[in-house]
C-alpha cells in the first residue's frame, strides 16, 4: 500500500518548484541586493537544505550562474543558534524553518541588527561580549580546593534550567525595537543570563557585580522599552520579559541599597 501512494507523490513533486528571494551582500562594506532562486522541491526540505541546493547548483532564477549564497549552520536541530536569519520577516533558525510551513516566495535575509559579514552570515560578537561584560559564569576557581558549593533547590533548578536553554542565537536582539544603531542596549539575552547566574547558589555570590554592570554606562537594563517582542520571538521559549522585570526589581533594590546602606 505504501508503494502505491509514494509513486504518484514523487512524480508530482518532481515538477514542483520553490521560489526563494534572498537578500545578499558581497562584503561588510557593500550594499545589500536581492537575488531570486527557483529550486526543485524535495519533501521535508528546510531553508538550510535549500541553501545547500544553491551551493550545489549556483544558478539564479534568471538562469545566470552566480556565487553560492553564504550562510552559517552547525547543529541542524535548533540548539546551536548559528543559522539565525530573517525568514519571511521573522527572525528564526533556518534549520527548523520547514519549506512546507512557509508562505512562498520564501524571503530570506540576514539579521541586519548585527554586522553582515557576507550574504546571510552575521557577526554576533556583541552578544558574546555582552556575556563577558555581565560575567555570565560561575567563578569556582581558587588557590585551594573550595569544596562543594551550596545546593540549589529543585524548584529553582527547574525554572533556571529554562533560562539555561539560551543559545545566544540573536533572535531576541533582532526582534527588539530598542536594539539598533541609535542605542547601546545590551539586549534581552544577556539580561536573562544575569538572572540565571544570580539565581545559582554559587553565582549569587557575585550577584551585585552583575547588577552593577546593568546600571552603569548607557547599555544597561534601562534600554528595555517593554515591546515584549523578545519573548514572542525566542525559539527556546525563554521567559525573557519575566527575566527583565525580575532584574528591574533586583536593580531597583540595589539602587536603594547603594543610596541608603552606604
Amino acid at each position, binding site marked *: 500500500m505504501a508503494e502505491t501512494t509514494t509513486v504518484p507523490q514523487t512524480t508530482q513533486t518532481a515538477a514542483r518548484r520553490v521560489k526563494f528571494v534572498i537578500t545578499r551582500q558581497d562584503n561588510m562594506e557593500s550594499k545589500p541586493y536581492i537575488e531570486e532562486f527557483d529550486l526543485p522541491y524535495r519533501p521535508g526540505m528546510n531553508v538550510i537544505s535549500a541553501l545547500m541546493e544553491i551551493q550545489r547548483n549556483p544558478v539564479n532564477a534568471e538562469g545566470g550562474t552566480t556565487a553560492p549564497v553564504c550562510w552559517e549552520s552547525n547543529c541542524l536541530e535548533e540548539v546551536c543558534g548559528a543559522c539565525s536569519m530573517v525568514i519571511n520577516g521573522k527572525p528564526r533558525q533556518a534549520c527548523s524553518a520547514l519549506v512546507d510551513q512557509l508562505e512562498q516566495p520564501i524571503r530570506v535575509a540576514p539579521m541586519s541588527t548585527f554586522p553582515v559579514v557576507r550574504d546571510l552570515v552575521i557577526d554576533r560578537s556583541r552578544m558574546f561580549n555582552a556575556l563577558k561584560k555581565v560575567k555570565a559564569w560561575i567563578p569556582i576557581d581558587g588557590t585551594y580546593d573550595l569544596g562543594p558549593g551550596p545546593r540549589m533547590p529543585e524548584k529553582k533548578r527547574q525554572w533556571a534550567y529554562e533560562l539555561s536553554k539560551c543559545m545566544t542565537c540573536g533572535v531576541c536582539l533582532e*526582534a527588539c*525595537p530598542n536594539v539598533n544603531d*541609535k542605542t547601546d542596549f545590551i539586549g534581552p539575552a544577556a539580561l536573562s543570563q544575569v538572572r540565571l547566574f544570580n539565581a545559582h547558589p554559587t553565582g549569587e555570590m557575585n550577584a551585585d557585580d552583575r547588577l552593577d554592570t546593568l546600571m552603569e554606562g548607557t547599555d544597561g*537594563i534601562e534600554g528595555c*522599552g*517593554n*515591546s515584549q517582542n523578545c519573548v514572542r520571538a525566542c525559539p527556546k521559549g525563554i521567559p525573557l520579559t*519575566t527575566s527583565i522585570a525580575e532584574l528591574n526589581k533586583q*536593580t531597583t*533594590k540595589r539602587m536603594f541599597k547603594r543610596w541608603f546602606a552606604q
Partner: protein
Amino acid sequence: MKGYYARKVHSLLGLVPLSLFLIEHAITNYAAFDGGQAGFQKAVRSLNDLPLVFFLELFFIWLPLLFHGVYGLYIAYQAQPNIGHFNTERNWRYVLQRVSGVVAFVFIVWHVYSTRFQISLGNVTHDELGGWMHDMVTQPGYFVFFLVGVIATTFHFANGVWAFLVSWGITVGPRAQRISSYICMGLFVAVTALFMLSLFAFRGEEFANTASVVTTLKTLIG
C-alpha cells in the same frame, strides 16, 4: 544625562508628580461639567489659594514636565518600531506610547502657552478661564486638537503607569502584567471620560460670557 538613573528619574517623574497632576487636572475640570461656570471658578480658585502655589507649579509641574518631555523625545527618537513583523498588542503599545508621548508634548506646550502663559501675560484672569476655554473649544479645529491631545495624553499616562510597574520590578510575571494592564486601561477610560465631559461642558452657552477674549486669542494664536 543618559543611562540607568536618567531613565529611572524619567519613569518616576511620569508617575509622581505628573500622573497625579493629570488626575488632579481631570477632577478640577470635571467641576465645569458638575458645577458649571460657578463650580469651575470655585475649583480654579481653590487651587490658586494653595500656599506657595508658584513653587508648587515650578517643582511639581513645570520642571518635571520639562525633564520628562525632553528626555521622552530622546527615547522616542531611539526607537525603531517593527509592528510590521511583530503585530502584537504589546508591540503596538510600545509604538503608541512613543507616538502619544510626542503628540502629548506638542499639545501640552501649546496648552500651557494658550492658558497658563496667557494668565502670566495678563490677557486672561483665573475667573475668566471658563469663558476663555469656551471660545477655544467652540472652534472646530481647536476642539479636534483638544480631543486628540487629551486622548494622547491620557493614553500615555495610563500605559506609562503600566510600564512604570514593570520597570520598577513591581509586576514581574506575565499574569501580574496582564492584570495591571486591565487596571491601567480602566484608568485610561476613567480619566479620559472626566476630560471629555469637561471639554463638552466648556462648549455650553453657560461659559459664553467673555466675548472680548476671542479677539485677543485670535490675534495671539489664530
